[in-house]
């Protein structure tokens, strides 16, 4: 069995002060709440702010997803909600698209119009909890427009809503692709980010190393990749959109994956905080302390949830949740015991959410800030992962930054090779996974857990509803709003499309329509799959 970290540092049997020559508490760690924030941002830790305990929802119709969200609230999820979109919305086509009819609501929430968001949020408050909508980068502007539009409808100032509905354009390269081109996703991300800053809306964008790691990337690579994304995206907001860095730094938050190698995961997050603090201060010349504090949410690792003996996943989830709590996260959502099968069943979701509650109230982990600080082992691991991450970060910098590294295929190759290496390690039993390549049992002896079924008719029903509902809209208004959006989209890369998108969304223009007309103005086909034509004729009028 391999005794080394996932980035190849060989682990010794014992650690001592000799492993930390020149260790300087003030410089390397600082007290909790002090630069470089290795120990976190709050002097009192969870005593002053508990992490947001949440579960990801989204499956079937919006009405069904609303039911799940209400159920989670009953289970004690009050601090924030988290909804993931289906493949259709992730691609910004509509459920009635020929390629979408079988997949609407299959793997998430089919949020292709404001109507769907209204149904999702029926009876659920927009304020007093964080609103998180995940899925992919392309619908970033739509998710933001939904929040703004619904807030206005409910008579709430959008600046009172907080959460995260934007998503970094780089996620497309981390093993979960959508069909929209990178330059479009980047432009729309910059528009949304500039819009929230200028309108003082407390909405964040996820900049996710979790996808990267769930697709096989190692801990050091994950840190380097997330810092490179921060550097590139904040740099663009400053240089291309004219924002102060201290405002730009309030846009991204990091969603980190926490696996079972407990101490290494704790070290990863501590190193990530320290490295960003230094980058913010030294590279970006941060004026505010808050800009040096990378907001970090945790998702426990779905890829470690095994198909075999799924009850074992409860143990894995508990270990990972404890690690996630120890690192001092701002929010946490768990993988579930049925993660290797399907979207969470009600039982699995309750199990996972309760795992958080048990960790929060029964273990004492919330009493003390950064309890592993000063451990010779954990501090060494923190230094080692940082060292390797800096090496990779420099390689990415030398290529010209994250965008250049993606264009040159560096990131994709790195991820592909690492995923292959992880597979081989299990295949050759260098790494053991209980129930998979170690202590396996015959499938017939395995305990059967309830599985959330996908009903084939649901998707077609969602598609048919959209088809008929589309015709009931105020079509002259939809057309007028889309015409304005189309015109705005022709006004250059830095012309912000958010105001026109919000207006179009308020008139119930759909995801496929909004992104479709923007695509057309950029010389692309209305439909990324080239199967349907734009139903509006304003392109001719505009010409």
């Amino acid at each position, binding site marked *: 069995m391999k005794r080394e970290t996932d980035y190849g540092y060989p682990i010794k049997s014992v650690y001592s002060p000799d492993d930390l020559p020149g260790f300087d508490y003030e410089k390397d760690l600082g007290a909790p709440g002090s630069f470089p924030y290795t120990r976190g941002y709050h002097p009192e830790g969870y005593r002053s702010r508990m992490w947001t305990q949440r579960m990801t929802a989204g499956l079937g119709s919006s009405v069904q997803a609303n039911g799940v969200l209400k159920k989670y609230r009953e289970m004690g999820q009050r601090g924030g909600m988290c909804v993931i979109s289906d*493949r*259709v919305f*992730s*691609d910004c086509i509509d459920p009635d698209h020929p*390629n*979408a009819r*079988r*997949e609407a609501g*299959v*793997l998430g929430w089919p949020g292709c119009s404001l109507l769907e968001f209204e149904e999702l949020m029926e009876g659920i408050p927009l304020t007093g909890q964080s609103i998180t909508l995940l899925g*992919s980068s392309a619908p970033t502007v739509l998710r933001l427009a939904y929040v703004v539009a619904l807030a206005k409808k409910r008579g709430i100032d959008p600046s009172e809503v907080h959460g995260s509905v934007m998503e970094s354009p780089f996620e497309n390269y981390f*093993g*979960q*692709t*959508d*069909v929209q081109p990178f330059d479009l996703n980047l432009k729309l991300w910059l528009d949304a980010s500039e819009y929230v800053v200028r309108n003082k809306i407390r909405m964040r964008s996820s900049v996710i190393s979790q996808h990267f790691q769930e*697709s*096989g990337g190692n801990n050091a690579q994950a840190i380097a990749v997330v810092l490179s994304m921060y550097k590139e995206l904040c740099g663009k907001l400053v240089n291309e959109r004219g924002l102060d860095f201290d405002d730009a730094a309030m846009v991204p938050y990091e969603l980190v994956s926490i696996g079972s190698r407990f101490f290494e995961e704790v070290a990863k997050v501590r190193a990530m905080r320290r490295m960003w603090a230094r980058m913010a201060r030294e590279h970006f010349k941060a004026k505010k302390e808050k800009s040096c504090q990378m907001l970090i949410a945790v998702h426990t690792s779905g890829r470690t949830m*095994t*198909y*075999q003996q799924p009850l074992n996943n409860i143990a894995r989830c508990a270990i990972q949740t404890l690690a996630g709590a120890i690192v001092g996260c701002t929010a946490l959502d768990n993988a579930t015991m049925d*993660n*290797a*099968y*399907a*979207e969470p069943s009600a039982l699995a979701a309750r199990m996972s959410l309760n795992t958080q509650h048990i960790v929060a109230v029964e273990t004492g982990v919330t009493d003390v800030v950064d309890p592993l600080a000063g451990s010779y082992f954990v501090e060494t691991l923190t230094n080692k992962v940082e060292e390797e991450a800096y090496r990779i970060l420099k390689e990415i910098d030398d290529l010209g930054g994250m965008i250049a590294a993606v264009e040159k295929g560096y990131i994709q190759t790195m991820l*592909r090779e690492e*995923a*292959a290496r992880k*597979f081989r390690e*299990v*295949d050759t039993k260098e790494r053991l*996974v209980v129930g*998979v*390549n170690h202590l396996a049992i015959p499938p017939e002896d395995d305990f*059967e857990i309830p*599985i959330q*079924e*996908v009903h*084939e008719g649901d998707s077609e029903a969602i598609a048919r509803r959209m088809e008929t509902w589309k015709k009931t809209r105020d079509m002259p208004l939809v057309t007028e709003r889309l015409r304005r959006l189309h015109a705005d989209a022709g006004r250059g890369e830095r012309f912000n499309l958010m105001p026109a998108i919000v207006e179009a969304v308020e008139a119930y223009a759909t995801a496929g329509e909004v992104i479709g007309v923007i695509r057309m103005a950029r010389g692309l086909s209305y439909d990324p*799959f080239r199967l349907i034509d734009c139903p509006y004729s304003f392109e001719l009028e505009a010409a």
Partner: protein
Amino acid sequence: MSKGKGIKIIVSMIGLDGHTTGGEVVSMLLRDAGFEVVYLGVNQTPQSIVDAAIQEDVDAIGISSHAANYSLIEELMDLVRAKGLDDVIVVVGGNIPKQQILKLAATGIAKVFTPGSASSEIVDFLVANVRRLPGAPDSVEHRAA
């Protein structure tokens, strides 16, 4: 290792499933085992996969599934039969529930590989089950020769 020498296989995602890691890892392990892999990537439809199978004259089709869109796999099987590709076996890999595996088997899927499958299981199954029998004009041996 050259167990797979002479066997040509498509590896593809189907529908809007954008999860590529599984398909890429399996393509790598098959190539390492000597297979000729035609990797189609994302955004493939049942029609485009069958078209590629005919054009590339493959022995097998491997679908990587991480998005629960099983009805598209059933549609693929209908099309495979309609086009008379009786000598092409279709296998699926992914996080697929047991009940769904039974349904897929009923449509003629030769094998579903669940998460945690060893590379040897995948390689050995394909080598043992590709249908172009030894001695046939288009056989594996013939191609390898």
